[in-house]
């Protein structure tokens, strides 16, 4: 048992910290600070810097571009990025699709798709959920029928609707779960397809969320023609890929480092805001107690995550325990949003979305806290709702 960083780890932390300070794109920083909406290029700016450095995908196997870092180094990396408020590398390609490609794809597929993911040249989106298939993902209905084209090649013709496709409005390609055998048991008839979003028959429609933002989309597929070689793994065995992907989605979801930074921001905010008694809000006994409780909860989650990481380094993949990280991680993020909204007081109410930036109504830190709170409710719903995560623990861990 030892919690200290080795001298090598300390040196690594310095290296990482300096690299971020010297290389984080200045315009991106300015836009983040002012709360301006980000363009497609903005989302990819930091990704491209990291690709050049070779640090885009620390967790990939080294032969595909991973860094070979120890779990401690990966932990330091995520801590330092959060500390510097860097924009997170988009997860769709790097964290969600790539592990499926390098685990289940052919050599040809690895060669075709991994470099584009790594270099941020291809923007990927996820086509999993459907209006009728949320928590019960395996009930998905989007169907893919196999045909022989006029050119003598094999294709799937895909029809259906996907929903909650995050940032799909920017996507070049998408990874989709489709039903290739309507007669098999739900999980048995699914295939994993990669689809060019510019294919004829694809329509992406925005879903506007409660805080007024456009992040998620509906994706309609109307007779979309997909070459059979764009299928990953065997026909009707896409569920195996999906399950592996979901485990990866869960393991990154704890967001400990980001929540730590969120706590710092909350403390700053509560130092400026005044309480009912006139002093800093952070000196208010009620508020201080709530922040303290949250910090303790986050510390517990941090050490649970570290234990999971240590387990992974000894060869265990992210197991069903990663559901703990998802449940607690999202609860903590939501609690942070609750407290930020409480801290803002009256100035939580203004909706300044359409007034542009620097509206100068209330303190700048209060702008958007209500929207973050509303939108943040999604975290206990997406990636397998927290109820589903509890089912996983009950079944897979407790054996109930």
């Amino acid at each position, binding site marked *: 048992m030892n919690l200290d960083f080795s001298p090598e780890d300390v040196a690594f932390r310095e290296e990482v910290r300096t690299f971020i300070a010297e290389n984080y794109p200045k315009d991106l920083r300015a836009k983040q600070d002012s709360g301006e909406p980000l363009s497609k290029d903005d989302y990819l700016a930091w990704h491209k810097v990291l690709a050049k450095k070779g640090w885009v995908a620390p967790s990939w196997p080294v032969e595909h571009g991973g860094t070979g870092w120890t779990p401690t180094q990966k932990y330091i990396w995520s801590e330092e990025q959060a500390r510097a408020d860097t924009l997170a590398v988009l997860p769709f390609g790097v964290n969600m699709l790539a592990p499926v490609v390098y685990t289940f794809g052919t050599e040809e597929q690895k060669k075709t798709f991994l470099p584009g993911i790594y270099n941020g040249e291809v923007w990927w989106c996820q086509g999993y*959920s459907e209006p*009728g*298939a*949320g*928590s*019960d993902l395996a*009930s998905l209905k989007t169907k893919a029928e196999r045909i022989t084209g006029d050119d003598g090649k094999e294709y799937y013709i895909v029809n259906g609707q996907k*929903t*909650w496709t995050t940032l799909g409005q920017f996507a070049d390609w998408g990874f989709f779960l489709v039903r290739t055998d309507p007669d098999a048991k739900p999980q048995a008839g699914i295939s994993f397809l990669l689809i060019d979003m510019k294919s004829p028959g694809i329509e992406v429609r925005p*879903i*506007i*969320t*409660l*805080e*007024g933002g456009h992040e*998620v989309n509906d994706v309609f597929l109307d007779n979309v023609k997909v070459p059979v070689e764009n299928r990953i793994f065997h026909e009707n065995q896409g569920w195996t890929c999906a399950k592996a992907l979901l485990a990866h989605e869960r393991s990154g979801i704890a967001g400990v480092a980001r929540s730590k930074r969120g706590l710092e921001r909350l403390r700053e905010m509560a130092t400026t*805001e*005044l*309480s*009912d*008694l*006139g002093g800093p*809000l952070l000196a*208010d006994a*009620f*508020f201080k107690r709530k922040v303290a409780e949250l910090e303790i909860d986050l510390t517990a989650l941090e050490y649970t995550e570290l234990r999971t990481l240590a387990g992974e380094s000894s060869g265990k993949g992210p197991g069903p325990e990663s559901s703990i990280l998802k449940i607690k991680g999202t609860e903590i993020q939501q609690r942070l949003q*609750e407290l930020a*909204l*409480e801290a803002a*007081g*009256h*100035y*939580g*109410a*203004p*909706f*300044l979305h*359409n*007034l542009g930036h620097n*509206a100068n*109504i*209330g303190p700048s830190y209060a702008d958007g806290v*209500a*929207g973050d*709170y*509303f*939108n943040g*409710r*999604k975290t*206990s*719903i*997406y990636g397998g*709702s*927290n*109820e589903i995560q*509890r089912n996983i623990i009950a079944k897979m861990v407790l054996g109930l």
Partner: protein
Amino acid sequence: MDFSFTDEQSMLRDTVASYLADHYAFDARRAAIRSEAGWRPEVWKAFAEELGILGAPFSEDLGGLGGGPVENMVVMEEFGKALVIEPYMGTVVIGGGFLKHSGHAAAPDLIEKIIGGEAIFAFAYAEPQARYTWQDLKTTATKDGTGYVINGQKAVVIGAPYATHLIVTARTGGGQRDAQGVSVFLVDKNAKGVTTRDYPTVDGQRASEITFENVSVGVEALIGPEGHGLPLVDKVMDEAIAATCAEACGVLRRLQEGTVEYTRTRKQFGVPISSFQVLQHRMVDMFIQLEQSISMTYMATIRLSDEAPARAQAISAAKVQIGKACRFVGQNAVQLHGGMAITDEMAIGHYFKRATMIEGVFGSTDHHLARYEALSFGKAA
């Protein structure tokens, strides 16, 4: 012991409910809050002329329906169910409350205008530096001849963009947070020196930041005693909080019932998700929170006629219950609806937004817990 409503009160409820069913569908409301005006003056006109409800809590001498807090409760609960944005709270409950309780010389005339739908009030009490302690005032009213000159800034004044009159709290004496020295003024919104910056709120209302720069008012602008206005503010605030609790009950009912209905129709794993026990228990807890909130709203409304400390304690107790229920029921309504509830398209998310904002209206849960503790255990506790 009697928790029943009179025939008149039941009729009032039916009148409001049936009008809102016809004129306040989700889409109509959404169009209104997105319009430039941000509200529907024609609805207000209908409240005044067709329904006659703007006189609900005023005595018959004043041209009202002869009701009081219970009538406000009935109206506000129905308003909560439809997420009504028109300024009944600012005008009838608060504006009317100040006029009624102060015995101001112009009260009969102004109340007549309220009942007729011509006078619309907004309550400018909050200030940027103050949290929920309403005597924390930097705004000053300085004696000038027979009248006063008002200077200061007011924050997030709900309903101000459509108001004709403002009720403004200001210091005529004492230190920034003293109980003594608080006075209440009636200011024409178009008065010289009043500037407003209008914006929408996250729950579909409109509000303003208001600056008062050397605003001259006559002595008749003073509502209640000079320098001793705080008890009047407390009384009207307590009435406003009780009415907010009633509104919350309407919002919570829609959240709770809407969730039960949705889970019955939403199928996953081949069955309606309402068949899962973990969700059933969650919905039972939501229902319990709703029932407890209704109970506390009745209690608070009845006890508005108590003497100040007992009244305030009852009101704060109710607001704590309401605040907790708004959070629990709101969050779980969203959770059980899944992603759908976070879209702008579905009504449930809009109820959730209002419920969330009600947590902070006229004092957060923490604020009212502290107020309750001080009243129940003494300041030293």
